[in-house]
Structure formats: structure tokens, C-alpha cells
């Protein structure tokens, strides 16, 4: 099979609640000065909505744009990073989503351990499935982030970002319509598997509620090559697809902080969409959903034929790049 895979739908769903950065820092007993340089003014917060409800809403919107009935989906991939409404991996949101959407023909996949880069892993896996199995014509990729309440500031001693709630969804399908997924390059650094993780609530510390929060291990985090690992992946991707990096029109990266995002963009010598800064300011870091949100901004600013690069580094430690032609 040599059909191309296209992005047919792209949508996000955010809860209506909002908390200012001042409120978030004050609520966690932190000095507001620590937020300087993050480029985040507020984050979206749930008021009782479940992660699966946000995921279903984002999924419905993406499917509506794609003009694809849920019953026509072949596979649902969940690349959520946050703890889910029941304990993973024994429970996976993708199964509930299959039911809530009425996607009776879809089998389900849950991914773990890749942070925001999980979206690019999901794109790579979905593309692989769609191009090798003729019985599958479309895939839904979803992430729904519901960070541990009262622990939204990642590394309170030296904040690297602030986590917000929200869901993002992409519909991919074989065919001729929509931005074309050219390819994905991925890499993980197992030496930094515990750079950022939640220690409590699983088998090592089952009852440690005090450890039920994201912990950033600073030395390990610093040792992971992060943005530097993305550059060779982009070069690999460009070479594989005969693309001159200078012709890439837009760069889509996760919304970590204005400093981190600018550094990644500078390292790649590419420009984020104009809407990305506002996305980060208004929602904070919503893991894989950032990439959906910023891709939505990028495609709105792109002309037909423009190349958009999605690039990420995240927990795992996973780095990745996906090239899309609008």
C-alpha cells in the first residue's frame, strides 16, 4: 500500500475554568517571581469534568471536521501523560472513548512514558498501522491532560513550566485530502527515564500520597539532551524526505515556557506560528495537547504546500519530529 496519510481533523477542548498564574503559585505556596520568564499568564482548569469527557469533546470536533463517522474509525490511540480517571495501565481511557464516541469498529492503544512527544509517537504508530493494514482507513489520536491538582508547577524550586488541563485530538486517514504526514523521526534516552515522573501511587510507593505529584529530577533533567536531541532527528527527517530545512514554513513545539520554546526554535532555526505564544500564555503546558493546539494555529497561518514541522522533547526521555505538508 502506498497511499498517503493525511490530517483530516484537528481540535482541542478546554474546560471553561481558568486560574491565573498568581493563583496557581499562591495556591502551591510559591513565590510568584518564580513564574517570571515562563510566558504563561493562566491555565485552564477543570471544575469536575473528567479527562475522558474532554477527550470525547475534542474527538467529536476533530471527527466532525474530518467528516468521518466514529463507526468508521479503525483505531484509537491515547497518548495522555497525566494520571487517568482510573489506574493505568490496568485501565485505559481509549476504551471508554471508543464507547463514548460510538467507535465500535476501532481497537484501542494506550501509550505511556513519552510526555508531549507521545503525540508524535502516536502519529508514527497510526501512520504505520494505516499504511500496512488495508482494513484500517482512519485513526483517532487523543490526549487529555488532567494534572495532579495543587501540583501544577513543575519543579517549584526553579519552575520549568506550569501544567494546564485540556484535550487535543487528531484524525488521520489514508487519502488525498488534508495536510500530508510525510514522516516522523523519534528517539528516547532511557538514561533519563526518571527525569520527570510521578513516584507515588504505583508499586514502589503505593500509599505515598506525598509522592503523588510530578517530580522533576534536576540533574537527570539537565543531563537529558532535550532540544539538542531534536536537531539530528529533524536533519534525519529532512534528508529522508528530500526537504531543505530552510523551506519549512512553521515550527510547532510544546508550550513549556517562552525561554525553552524560543531556545528550541532558535536551535532549529525555525519560526513558531504567531498564535503559539498566546496558546502558551492562555493555557500553560498541556503536554501533547500543546502540539495539537499549536498545529491548529500553524495550519491557519499556512498556505497550501507549506511545510510544518512538529518537534518535541519530553518525559521518557523522548524526542521527536514530524513533518507535515499543508
Amino acid at each position, binding site marked *: 500500500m502506498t497511499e498517503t496519510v493525511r490530517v483530516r481533523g484537528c481540535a482541542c477542548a478546554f474546560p471553561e475554568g481558568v486560574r491565573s498564574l498568581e493563583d496557581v503559585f499562591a495556591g502551591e505556596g510559591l513565590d510568584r517571581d518564580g513564574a517570571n520568564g515562563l510566558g504563561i499568564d493562566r491555565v485552564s482548569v477543570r471544575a469536575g469534568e473528567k479527562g475522558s469527557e474532554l477527550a470525547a469533546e475534542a474527538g467529536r470536533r476533530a471527527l466532525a471536521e474530518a467528516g468521518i463517522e466514529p463507526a468508521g474509525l479503525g483505531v484509537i490511540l491515547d497518548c495522555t*501523560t497525566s494520571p487517568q480517571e482510573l489506574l493505568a495501565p490496568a485501565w485505559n481511557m481509549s476504551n471508554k472513548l471508543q464507547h463514548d464516541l460510538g467507535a465500535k469498529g476501532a481497537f*484501542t*492503544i494506550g501509550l505511556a512514558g513519552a510526555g508531549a512527544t507521545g503525540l508524535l509517537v502516536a502519529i508514527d*504508530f497510526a501512520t504505520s498501522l494505516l499504511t500496512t493494514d488495508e482494513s484500517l482507513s482512519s485513526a483517532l489520536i487523543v490526549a487529555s491532560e488532567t494534572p495532579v491538582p495543587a501540583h501544577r508547577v513543575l519543579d517549584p524550586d526553579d519552575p520549568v513550566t506550569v501544567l494546564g488541563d485540556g484535550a487535543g485530538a487528531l484524525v488521520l486517514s489514508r487519502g488525498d485530502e488534508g495536510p500530508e504526514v510525510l514522516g516522523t523521526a523519534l528517539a528516547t534516552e*532511557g*538514561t533519563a527515564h526518571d527525569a520527570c515522573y*510521578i513516584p507515588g*501511587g504505583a508499586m514502589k510507593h*503505593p*500509599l505515598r500520597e506525598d509522592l503523588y505529584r510530578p517530580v522533576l529530577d534536576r540533574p537527570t533533567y539537565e543531563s537529558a539532551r532535550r532540544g539538542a536531541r531534536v536537531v539530528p532527528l529533524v536533519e534525519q527527517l529532512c534528508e529522508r524526505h528530500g526537504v531543505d530545512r530552510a523551506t519549512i514554513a512553521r515550527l510547532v513545539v510544546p508550550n513549556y515556557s517562552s525561554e525553552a520554546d524560543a531556545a528550541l526554535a532558535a536551535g532549529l532555526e525555525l519560526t513558531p506560528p504567531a498564535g503559539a505564544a498566546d496558546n502558551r500564555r492562555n493555557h500553560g503546558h498541556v503536554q501533547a495537547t500543546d502540539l495539537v493546539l499549536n498545529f491548529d494555529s500553524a495550519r491557519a497561518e499556512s498556505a497550501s504546500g507549506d511545510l510544518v514541522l512538529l518537534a518535541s522533547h519530553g518525559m521518557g526521555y523522548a524526542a521527536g519530529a514530524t513533518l507535515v505538508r499543508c
Partner: protein
Amino acid sequence: MTTDGIGILASAYYLPPGAKTAQEIFADEPLPEDSILGEIDFAKDIGIDRVHIAGDEQPSDLALEAARRAVAAAAIDPLEIDLLVDFTSIPEDYLAPTWSAAGLVQESIGATNALAIGVNTGGCASFHVALKTACAWLEAHPEADTALLFSGIKTPESNHVYYPITLSCDGGSAYVLRKGHGRRVILAVETATVGELHDIWYMQGLANREEGKEPADHFLHMQADLPGFQEKVIPINLLMFRKVIRGALKKAGFKMKDVDYYVYPTFSSWDQESFCRGMRLEPDQIYTESLARHGHLQENDMIVNYDDAAGEGKIADGALVVVTGNGAGFTWSAAVVRD
């Protein structure tokens, strides 16, 4: 999906040395007073003599030992591994999906070139979902040819009884997929999910407990909606098995009558009898011998039973083997393998 040309180069499993007899398990974990099994006596009829217990080993330790054994059996350099998949289906060392043991195993065995990721679907069907995904990825990536898939199961304390199904056993399994390997070739994988049943078997989790409740072990225990299981899962169980088995065979160009051997999960004596009856299998067409030895290893049953059946000479060279299972989610799956 037909995946010509990807075979299982090697496989291995690890059972921790610690063990408890079934009687000891039942003494520690009382059964419900009201049986829903009719004439079947869960404790007497289950057919499981003992289960292995991990003790101080973490899930990742079990996974890592199995992974090392599989890599050694495959006689490959870990640097050759392009994809490393963790298909563990119950909680690991740290909280999922934020963390997966894939990165830890990558670091420990030195699979520096691999993409390391956790892939699951909730429950034992993670084996087939990971297999299907890995085969598709290898097929779609001409530059890649080797994948290592692993799982490490450690049952939370006092949660070995999965009434009315089985007793959970600790252990790990792993296998190496390689393009062009001509043995145990994966011909097709079929998987079907009924998402309405997503919360029939589940673990609640520490953070999802009711307000005012203190942290306690049972929030990591497998819970069952027993009426839902009886009313919604059991009536369709064999039907779904037939659906995915026939679907996989059709994709591979075969029919049920062509199947030489079945590899099936290790649940209980009555479940094995029911499956054999429902699928009209002769006793020598399916591996059931492991039931007494160790009970249910979740998704690891697939590799453990395949390896044991092969080791005991029950699978002839070139046999057509169906590896099938089901799991919480609820997902039913089947893989057709040419041995």
C-alpha cells in the same frame, strides 16, 4: 494485517523464585460468600496449585530479567534493537501513563538506538495490541528490523484472587521480533474492543478514591463489576474469540480447520474446558499444562505458554498456531503464527 516476513527470533520468561500455594492464597484472601459460579467451587476446581511471588522485586526487575534472557537467546547486540515496547498491563514501579519501564529497560540493557515506549490497552490483550503495533511499525520503517517487547507483572499484595476468574501470578516475559526471520512468523493479528465494558475490571487508584478515605492497599487492587461481567462479558466471550480468530485466519489466508495448535491464557480449569468445548478443540490442540504450575501471568501467559508448549514438543515445525487472548478493556485478540 498480514505481516509477512516478521518472525519471533527468540522469547523468554522469568518466574521469581518465591511462591505461595493456592491454599495459602485463599487463607489470606477470603472469597466472596455468594458464589456466582453455580456448581463450580472456585477454590477446589480452579486447577492452580501455586503462584509465584515477586517479593522485593519491582515489576521492572521482572521485566528486565525476561528482557535480558530474550536478548541472550536471540544472540543479538542490544544496539541492534530499533523498537523497545513495554506491554505491561498492571501498575509498574511508578505511575502510568506518565512513566513506563521502557526507558529503564532501554538504559539497563544498553538499547541506545531503540525507540522505547509503553503500549497497552488495559488488560492482557496488551500482548496482541503491542505485537500488532510493533509489526506495523517495523513494516512501515524500512530502516528498522528488530523489536524487543516485554512485560513485568507484580501483583499488589493481597490481590492474587481475581474472583471468579483466576489467581494472579508474578513474572515477566519478553520476545524479539525480526524482519526476515523464518520461524514463528507473524502472519496476521486481529484485535476487537468493546469499549462499553471498559470498567468491568479496573483498578481505582490512590487519587481516585472517595473523599475522606485514607490511602490503602485496595486502591491498587483489581476490582470487578461482577454483575456486569456475568451479564455483559460472559455471553459474548466465545463469540468474540471466534470473531477475532476467524478474522486473523482470514487475513492470513486460512480457516479454522487449518489451525494445528492454540496458545491461550491460563485462567482456570473450567475456563479451559469452556474454551475447548466452544471452539471444538481436542485436548492435544491447546496448551493447558501450565495451569497447575503457576496460574495467570496476565499478558505474559502468551509467551510462557508458547515457550512451554514448544519446549515439550507439542508444536510441530511449521505448525499453524493461533495465539489468542482477551483482557480488560474489553479486548479480544488473535495472532496467527507459522511456527
